[in-house]
């Protein structure tokens, strides 16, 4: 199983290198850190610098893993992974809604996936360290360095599998694979397409609010929709109304269900003098 241990520095170097480059090359460090648990932990002044230095450390670790894979670099990767787990634990307790700020400028909600991802890194570092220890214990005849008598096919398979698992556990990367898959499922299965073909109330209200009739009469309307029903191809909307002189009444709007705003009819039922005036307001077409 030497190939399993040999593959781990490659996987870890890829992850830490990628993460480090993202951190160090990111413009607007303050903006990147704002809203993360790191900002809450260290404050707005120190956090951007710490974020940058962490990126430098990750790059250095990635290079070390590539050029000098062994127990020391595996131990360093384990310490880094353990630090991530502690950080995520702090974030989950202190600022549960804060973003991680780990792998992307995308600020996503932290869930169990973040812990599982850090756990994957820790496990990988432990396997790499165990492999390096076994190689050293064999009297130097065996080495766990990835370039030493490698089984390229097996190593590639391990790295690809671990990378796939890592991506699957990274909420920041959902837009690359999870959302496209979900969009495909929605296109195929159309989960919300089987709804009754009715004109929603909001459609009638929207037509009314943009109409000439509303502009002419809205000063009389004192309430939101009191009730509504459909009749003769119209939706009747009932509002409580108030005349400019304080008189009370009811405002009725008959909004065509076909959305023809020019055909909206308005009626004011006056409750003050027990008479009514009706006017049909037709906007110029």
């Amino acid at each position: 199983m030497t190939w399993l241990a040999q593959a781990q520095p490659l996987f870890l170097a890829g992850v830490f290198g990628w993460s480090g480059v993202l951190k160090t090359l990111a413009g607007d460090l303050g903006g990147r850190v704002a809203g993360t648990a790191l900002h809450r932990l260290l404050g707005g002044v120190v956090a951007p610098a710490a974020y940058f230095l962490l990126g430098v450390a990750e790059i250095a670790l990635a290079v070390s893993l590539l050029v000098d894979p062994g127990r020391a670099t595996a131990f360093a990767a384990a310490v880094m992974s353990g630090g991530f787990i502690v950080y995520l634990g702090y974030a989950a307790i202190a600022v549960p809604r804060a973003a991680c700020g780990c792998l992307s400028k995308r600020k996503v909600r932290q869930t169990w996936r973040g812990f599982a991802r850090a756990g994957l890194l820790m496990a990988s570092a432990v396997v790499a360290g165990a492999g390096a220890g076994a190689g050293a214990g064999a009297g130097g005849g065996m080495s766990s360095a990835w370039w030493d008598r490698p089984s390229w096919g097996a190593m590639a398979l391990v790295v690809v599998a671990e990378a796939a698992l890592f991506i699957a556990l990274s909420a920041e990367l959902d837009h690359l694979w999870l959302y496209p898959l979900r969009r495909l499922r929605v296109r195929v299965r159309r989960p919300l397409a089987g709804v009754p073909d009715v004109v929603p109330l909001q459609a009638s209200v929207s037509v009314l609010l943009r109409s000439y009739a509303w502009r002419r009469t809205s000063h009389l309307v004192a309430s939101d929709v009191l009730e509504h029903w459909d009749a003769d191809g119209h939706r009747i909307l009932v509002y409580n109304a108030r005349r400019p002189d304080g008189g009370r009444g009811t405002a009725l709007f008959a909004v065509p269900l076909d959305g023809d705003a020019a055909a909206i009819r308005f009626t004011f039922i006056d409750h003050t003098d027990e008479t009514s005036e009706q006017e049909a307001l037709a906007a110029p077409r």
Partner: protein
Amino acid sequence: MTTQVDRRRFLTSAALGGATIVGATALGSLAPEAAFGAAAPGVGPGDIDPQFAEGRVTSISGSLIVAAGSDGTLSAIQTTTGTSVWKLTPTSLSAIRPGDGLYARGVRMPDGSLAADALWVNIVSLDAHVANLASDHLDLDHHSSKIKAHVISGVSAAVYNGTPPVTDLSHVPVGGHVHVVGAWRPDTSEIDISTVYAKV
């Protein structure tokens, strides 16, 4: 029920042009309280709007609602048959429950109570990221919180690119951002969708 149908038939004929003289006594229950005739005072910058109240409903006694505001103040809100009540759809006072959140607009009375013209119960308006579409709801991310947004048949509507609302929400983009107006289900992270505004 018959009275309701007769009343609606009567109002329909008025709205569509069949009536020329309508007496208020024929309608009866539509009339709001006389308090609603009061003029509204102006609101200066930084002042509390006297025509507005918000909070969680602590008690309902007849037509009087008491709500505990987010700033700790108690508001007495007087309703009438002319008060509109929105709780996902236009409804009545009987739909309001203790624990509901509400916004009220009306006229401040001399005794400090608010004579409500309109109540919006549990209304929420939020920007969100669409994580998934299911057969009866949307999964939303809002400020790092997961929200289950229920689609209510015949009620929930979608506005795509500013076009008129439709009941087909199947075009809401997974992975996209939307604005949602809906009714919160108290003490849960779930809402019922009134309208989703999306770009497609």
